[in-house]
């Protein structure tokens, strides 16, 4: 019988619940996060039109570069000011 040391990191089994799906888009504050890939703006422009049409308030955000995680401050700002966020990946 071999005893070895765990090569992985201990992680808590804590489950994070998803936010409930919004029942309506009317009056919802929606953030649109552009990850700064080429042409992501085209996709988000169209989404903004559609969302505004159904009564959502849209705020646009952008990551400085697609190659790095969004800065903490940006994540915090989105979490504070939005009910939902849509992140666009495009090329």
């Amino acid at each position, binding site marked *: *019988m*071999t*005893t*070895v*040391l*765990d*090569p*992985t*990191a*201990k*992680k808590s089994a804590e489950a994070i619940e998803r936010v409930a799906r919004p029942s309506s888009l009317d009056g919802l504050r929606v953030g649109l996060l552009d990850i700064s890939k080429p042409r992501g703006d085209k996709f988000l422009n169209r989404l903004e039109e559609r969302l505004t049409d159904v009564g959502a308030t849209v705020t646009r955000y952008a990551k*400085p*570069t697609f*190659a*790095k*995680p969004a800065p903490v401050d940006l994540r915090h700002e989105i979490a504070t000011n939005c009910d939902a966020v849509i992140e666009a990946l495009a090329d």
Partner: protein
Amino acid sequence: MTRSAISVAAMSLPTPQTEVDNSKPALPNGIVAVVKQDCPTCELVDPVLGEIAAAGQTLTAYTQDDVGFPTSLTGVVDDTDLSVSWHHEIETVPTLIEVKDGVEVRRIVGWSREQWTEFTGVPNLGAALPEQRPGCGSLSVDPGYVDELTVRFGGSALHGRRIEFAALEDEMEAAFDRGWTDGLPVVPPTEARVLRMLEGTTRDPQQIVATVPPDLIEVTVEQVAINAVMAGCKPEYFPVVLAAVEAACSDEFNMHGLLATTMHSGPIIIVNGPIAKKIGMNGGHNAFGQGNRANMTIGRALQLVILNLGGGRPGGTRPGEKGVDMSMHGSPGKLSFCFAELEEDSPFSPLSVARGFEAGEDTVTLFAGQGPTPIIDQISRTPESLTRSFAAMLATSGSSKLAIGFDAALVISPEHGRIFSEAGWDRDRFMNELNTLLTLKGDDLIRGAHGIDEGLPADFAGMDIPKFRPGGLLVMHAGGDAGLFSSVLTGWVGGAKGSEPVTHRIGS
């Protein structure tokens, strides 16, 4: 007992019947002798120990093998589990220790009449014996025992969770089943192996090395050691592994983005300094390839740290499998891409020196890239011609229509390097000539130019565009002594938008 008999005996170190007591056993006051029967010097001094006891000295003998030895004394203490010997760091038998108030005052090893007489205060010891004899190796430092003893008595230094494989589980398969491998078998990280790996560094096992992406886990020296064992590293490689993990997990290097990119790239490790030779790294024939244990396992250890500790799993390797690493093609270099720069006979200063370190300092440089792409030039014999050859290949690195965004590394072979050294070109001269040749015409690069839609935006028309951003082209020397080829290692997104090459000093 012969040497081979000792190694067989190593299999039968007495197993403790009860819970092992890890505390250091106290020694009795007076004189303590540690001996083993399987030592001619100990046999020689057997009657001398009797003389010391007969002279009224308080003498306690500990035997490492035969409880009936030494024959001249009664009440010999059984140390066949080597607990006393290990804890009191006995390296040689016989060892005499003087203990006062439970504390060791001094010790001598081997047999020397003069020393023993002075030590015990008993005159005319061992009149029939030669003046002196060196001792023998203590069983507690015998290579066949030492790892098991370190686990048994020193194992509490390790904090990691112990996982017991089932009796019928194959240990190689068990590692695959638990998702701990990169697709190749790993060395099972037993406590003995991990402790041995930790001997390769002076750092405390519980010290934090880095915060490893993508899960941003703070990892300890011990956790890195576990993965270095699995990768197949020797303890002397471990300082290089630690430096590589630190450098890869720096903000500038951006291991998170490099892992997550759909591009081919991964971390490439270039080692400079005397340590490369000391641990047997390869910067010659097959420097990028298989065959050298240090090259193959150091890079692999970094990748196993990212996989097992950072949670950076490759996705899509089986239908439906999810992972942060969704590289479109991936790269064989993501198993391990690690080599030494061949500093001797290089036409240029070492890469580490070009990056601000002193010559002779041990460093790792992390570069985000893939490759190699060969540059074939078997005809050029002048530096001017060869530099043009290099520039023509570098100008198309990644894409013939893109510039500035992506870095590259140029690895010059010894046969190509000689052309520069014979012409007296140093690094600065070469870089100046190369950068001039790598200043491209915007007209050739814009979208649609040369019938290719990919390219720079139309605004760049009419401008001179450098192929690489400042600092985005690394130049180094490696390879075997035959072959008029060099290599381009195509890089990833360079600089603050992606990855900055990072050089770190290798510690102890």
